[in-house]
Structures are given as C-alpha cells and as structure tokens.
C-alpha cells in the first residue's frame, strides 16, 4: 500500500492503495465516484473514460501510480450543474438508452471537441471508439455536432 495525492475534479485527494490499482477502482471504490464505469478492464469499451489533462483516457488500465499531479476529470466533475454543452446536447438529442456507457461517451466527445471544435464525421469516427451496446451511435454523432454548434469545447 502507498499513499497518493491526486487532483480529481479540481480537488486534492489522498488515497492509500496498492500502486498498481487502476485509477478506475480508486475512483469507484475509494472515492465513491461511481459514474466512471467498468465494462471490460482491457481499455476496449471506454465505459471507464476520464479526462486527464483534457485528453480522454481509459482509466481501467491506468495504474494510480502513473497519474501523479495530472488533472483528472470524471463525469461527476464535468460541470457544476450537468450543463456542459456536451451534456446539454446529450439531453436535447435524447441519446441514452440503458445509459451505462454514456458518461464515457460524453467525456470522449468533450476531449474530441477540445482538439477539434468543429469535427467532421470522419473526426468523430476516429475519436469515438467507445462501445455502446444499445447502439445509440446515430444520436451520439448528432449530439456531438449539436454540442459543437453550441460551442462545445466548454
């Protein structure tokens, strides 16, 4: 066990965990930030996506010891009132079905819009590799374009 100081959602937190613990389980089990989801554990599905220094990262394979002083943002910390332009677009397009993957999808979209505020369909194809088992992809694409129109890079 070792002590790690992390910057999560703009707050300094200290956790005492095994150094190889994936960030996902630190968030879920130690910090009770359960909006970050487990789906595959092998960085395939993206349900565990968080933002690290504004980039989308799959937290299920990232050891907590590698996080250091990076700025971590989880779905709970994306906006104060759930009104980030990407969240608004998700509501407006009524994207979710089961909803389980959507936190990860939203954060992937936020990272994309930071890089490319006006993404093309090809940009969306390349960036949005998260699995949605319910198949809400048509709406995800639509919501990203809408968020972009709203000035979605937050």
């Amino acid at each position: 066990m070792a002590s790690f100081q992390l910057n999560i959602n703009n707050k300094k937190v200290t956790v005492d965990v095994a150094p190889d613990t994936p960030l996902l389980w630190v968030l879920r089990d130690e910090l009770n930030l359960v909006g970050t989801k487990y789906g595959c554990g092998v960085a395939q599905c993206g349900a565990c996506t968080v933002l690290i220094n504004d980039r989308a990262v799959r937290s299920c394979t990232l050891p907590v010891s590698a996080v250091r002083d990076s700025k971590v943002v989880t779905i709970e910390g994306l906006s104060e009132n759930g009104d980030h332009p990407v969240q608004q677009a998700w509501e407006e397009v009524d994207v979710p079905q089961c909803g389980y993957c959507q936190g990860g999808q939203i954060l992937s979209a936020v990272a994309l819009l930071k890089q490319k505020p006006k993404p093309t369909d090809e940009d969306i194809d390349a960036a949005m590799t998260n699995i949605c088992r319910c198949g809400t992809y048509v709406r995800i694409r639509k919501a990203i374009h809408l968020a972009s129109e709203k000035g979605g890079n937050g």
Partner: protein
Amino acid sequence: MKTLTKQPTAPKQTGASAISRRNFLRVSALTGGGMMLGFEMLAKAIPEVAADEVLFTPNAYLVIDPKGIVTLMAPNPEIGQGVKTALPMLLAEELDVDWKKVVVTQAPFDAVKYGNQSAGGSGAVRSRWESARKAGAIARHMLVAAAAQTWNVPVEECYTETGFVIHKPSGRKLNYGELTEKASAMPVPEKVTFKDPKDYKIIGKRIPNVDNKAIITGKPLYGIDTRREGMFFTLVARPPAFGKKLKSYDDSETLKVPGVKKVVRWDNVVAVLATNTWAAWKGRDALKLVYEDDSPLESTADHEAAFKKLIQHKADKPAREDGNAEQALAGAKKVIESVYEVPVVSHAPMEPINFFAHYKDGSCELYGPTQVPGRARADVAKALGIPEDKVTLGLPRQGGGFGRKLRTDNAVEAAMISKIAEAPIQMMWTREDDMQGDFYRPSSMFRYRAAIDENNELTGWYVIAAGLNNGRPAIAENFPAGSISNFRVDNHNLSSNIPTGPWRAPTHNSVAFAEQCFIDEIAHELKKDPVAFRLELLEKAKSLGLKINYNIPKFRGVIEKAAEMSNWGKNTPGRFKGFSAYFSFSTYVAEVAEVSVVNGKLKVHKVWAAVDCGQVVNLSGAENQVEGAIIDGLGHAWHTKLTFDKGAVVEKNFQTYKFMRLQDAPPEIEVKFIESHDSPTGLGEPGLPPIAAAVCNAIFAATGKRIRKLPFGEEI
C-alpha cells in the same frame, strides 16, 4: 402500514387511500434501494408541505400531493428499453397532467401491487396499455367527482385540463392538489372512459428519457454502484470451461493479498471478499484452482459438423406441412438450395453481471440487475431455504439486458455467497467471467430448398433447420408460410451442455436472416423485384386461405412504406439497396439498407425502417429502440461470433469479441411508424431481426456475392 383514513362514508369498493406525507415517506424509506432517490426528489420538491397534509393515492401507481405535485410509479425494470419513461406516460395521459411537472420514480418490487414486473418479450407496454391508462383514468374520474361535490354541480358539467378540474358552465377551476383530501373519499369508479386518441397530449409525443439528467452527470443509478456499510467487494472464480467442475482450491496466497478478508466456496464457485475490487481481483488471480472434467468438452466445430448432418435428414414430424413440398421439389423444373449459418453470440450487456446481497438471520436483502424480479426472489428464497417474504429486492436501472438477465443465476450466486460468508457483498463478474458464464444465443443452421416450376412460379418451400438446445430454430408459422401451397418446416434440436437462452428477439434474430436472404435469392432467380415478389406472396396468402399468423394488410403496409421511403428501385451511383421485412412480437418491420462495397470494404450509408407497432407511446424512445435494434442486429451480423474450444470460449473479451463501433454504424437511420391507434405491440426487439438480411441482400446487389454465414466479417 398506518394510514390516515378520511373516508367515513366510503362505500366498500373504495380502494383509494389517503396517507400523510410523513407516513408516506416513512413507508417509502422502508422499501429501500431504488425508491429512495425518487422520494428524496419528491421530498425536495415539496419541502413546505406539512406532515399531516393529505396525499391522494387512488392506487399504487400515482400520488398527488396538496401542491399538485404528481408522482408516478414506473412498475417494470428499466434495462434501456425505455419503460421507465413510457409506462408513466400512459398514467399521465389519462390522469391529464402536465408531463413537465410529474416526478417519475421506480416502483418497488411488489407483485401484489404491481402484477408482473418483468422486462422481456417486448411486453411491458403491451401488457400495461390497458391497466396503466386505467390507473390514471380512475384518478381523473375521482378528482372530477371531488370537484363536482365541492361545487355541488353534476359531474357531467366538469372536465379536466392538465392538472385542473374545470366547471364548464361557470368556468370555475380547482387544481388537483386542492382536491387530494376530497378525492381520497370518492368511490373508485368501476368503469372509466379513456381519452380519444386525437386528444392525446403525451402519448405519441417525443418525451426524453426520465433519467437523462442522472445518466449524463454520472449518478449512482445501477446495481453495480451499490455501496453499503460493511460491504465487501467480491469477485468469483468460476470454471474455465463448460464440462468442468471445481475439484479443490488453495487460497493461502490469496489471503496474503492486502485487503482480502475472506475466501468462501459455493458449489463450483470460489468467492474472494475484499475491501476493494482490485484486492479481490488480485486475490482471485492468486487462487490455486483444480478442476476436473464433469461432462463432454464441446467445441463449435463439433456443433457445426453435427448441424451439417442433421439438416440432411427429414424430421420424423414436420413443424408445419402444407401440401407436399417434397413432391413439389421432385417435380420442379429447377430447385434452389442454400444453407445459412448463424453463430453463438453472448449478451454481453455493458454493465457486467453483479448483485448486492445481504443474508442475515433468515432474511436476505437484494439489490441488482434482473429482468425478472419475481423469479429472482423465488429462486433466491429456494436456494437459501427461506420463505419468499423474507427476501427483499430493489430494482435499479440496468446497464442493458438483451435477455441475459432473464436468468437469475447472479442473484442466487450473490445470495449464497453472502450467506456462507456471513457478510453483505457486492458480487461482480469480470468481463471474462461474463463471456464464459453466459446463457448464449444458440447457433443454428438452415437448409432451404425452393421448387420452381416451368411457368417460373414458386411452387414449393422446404426448410430443415437445426439449433443448439433449440427445438424450433425455423419458426413454423413465419411468412412465407401460407403463401406457398407446398410448404414444409422440419426442426432438429442438438443438445449441448453449453447453456443457451433468449437473446434479443430469440430465434427471430437468426431465422429472419436466413429466410429473408433466401426470399431474395428466389426473387433474383425468378427475375422479380424483391419488393414486388414479397407483395405477390402476400396476395397468394390471401387467396390460398391457409393458416397464417400475420395480418396481410399490416405486412403489406410496412413493405410499401419502406419501399416508398427509400425510393426503392432507384439507386445513387455506386450505392446499392437490399430489402427485408419481418413480423415478430406482433409488430411489422420492413427495412431497406443502402450500402457500397469498395475494395472489399463495406459501408452502410443509410437504413430506412417502416414499423407498424400500433399506437406509438413515446416517439423519441420508440425511434431510439428501432435505431438501436438496427445497429445491434447489424453489428452482430458484421462482426460478432463466439467460438468454443473444448468447452472454453475463445473470444474472452472485447479485443476479439467484436462489437460494432460508431465508425461502422450507418450515419443515418430513418424510422417511420405507420399511424395507428391500435393497442401498442412490441418494440424493444422487432427492429432487430430484419436488418442482417437487408444488409446482406444489399451486399449481393453491390457485389453479386451471397452471404450465407454470419458474421460476414471485415472483408466482403
């Protein structure tokens, strides 16, 4: 439950109860889990209500408080199919309230109050269409009666408008909140009148998913998010193959892992209880497990070889026989013969298998994902050897179902581990556990033969099918049954120790691909347009008068609509279309896929779907279901298969078990519903079966290549 009864003269059929807010919240709190959020919301919404003010609760489905806040219960489990939104919409419509002002909450599991609370067979809206509207209408009638009594006017002079009762002659109005006490004393009407569909303000409109805000902000909505005082994060080691059982285990290394607190065995499962998931994970990896063979270790290659033999054999008894298909084939000028194959796939819902269980002193508290709460409770009670009323079960939102959670193994396993370990646990399966521990969509193989006579007419159809643990892989009643005078269906079952079960649109999801592709093959052979050929078959069904299970005008309606929507018969250069139409769960769906194939690479540009599901309840949710079903069906046809090697799954996680990603999804899916006020029919599943054939028929149009085995993979 203590209630304040304020109905001294109420006749015996009075079922309404008036309860104080204080009691209401207390009772609600006792029901635990999923209820809490809803009632916290309610409490927040009406902080100024005095504890002794009267709430109007004419039945278990709705509550109106003195401020007019309406709380509606969503009785069935939400697995992504949208019933937490759609069912309360039915209540709200007939209650006649402003949707924006209602609070929706998940009802607790209570079979006495809510009847069948399941999610399966595309049945929730279908089965509650009458009863949910009636629950709303009863309340509306009682509110009107209360207002009429207040004003001392005839009931007939009063009507409702979004949360108000209005006295027509005088224009006086009272909001529902002002009537809660009086309405509670009104007799429950035996007969109610429903709204005329043309007056609908909620049903048929686009209503966003009621949990959207909670979903997009990462709230703890799912069973896997359960956190309780003293709870252990629990992972399990399960047999590595079907046909193997646990012989012995050694947990000495496991118990050295910091955070691991306990290791217990139940049946073939070794459970590792720890203070966090990662410790349980490492502890599980450190177990030394010895397994022994218990039954044959089967492989997919064995199943395929057995299927190939079975489909050459006539069944002892046909599943359906009209005329004489064998004779028609023998006398045919030409016989078309094709074999279609569909693999095993896993449900793999995004939320992995999990359950919270706490067994203590002969009672058990459960909270977790299940499509069948009633069965889960019964199975857990039986396994624990306690009465059913000692088992409580909360209903969280679920991260997908697709049929996986029609089995209750997860609840039973968690409950038994909790009992043996004497601790509250949150049991979770890893994705690898889930891939190896599913009840899979059975594989199947179909051998079709069609007889063509000298007049270029289809005179006979004979399918011999085989399924893994599936005795009816070719559904005997399916179209084109009834449209061909010589028609025979033979089914063979191949028994296996690999467990199989219902997977979204069970059996339909496989047979639709095979028969809708084969119909396309016949149409091309006869040099007929695939749409015109289907319509011609429907005409024949009308004239032949054989037994059919489908409605000819409705089937025709969706076929013509999809053809019209897609401008069938006209192609954009370089793009090609394929057609498919299928009837399941009482719903008719026709789909057209537009594709291009360049250097062996498939692109699906657009899909059109025409759907007749009776009255649409939530237009946005309904479209979402059909879009999702199309992507689900297409993704599995394109990429997904599960292979067994000596009882073990080969594709152990998502690196090799391939799901559709956004880049392959059609950029556009256009869904149109046939306008109808018939009672709603199924919608969670019927959009899925037709799509594989629509795309494969389009691929044939583009390349001349017939796809007869799924998945068709990356290279066309």
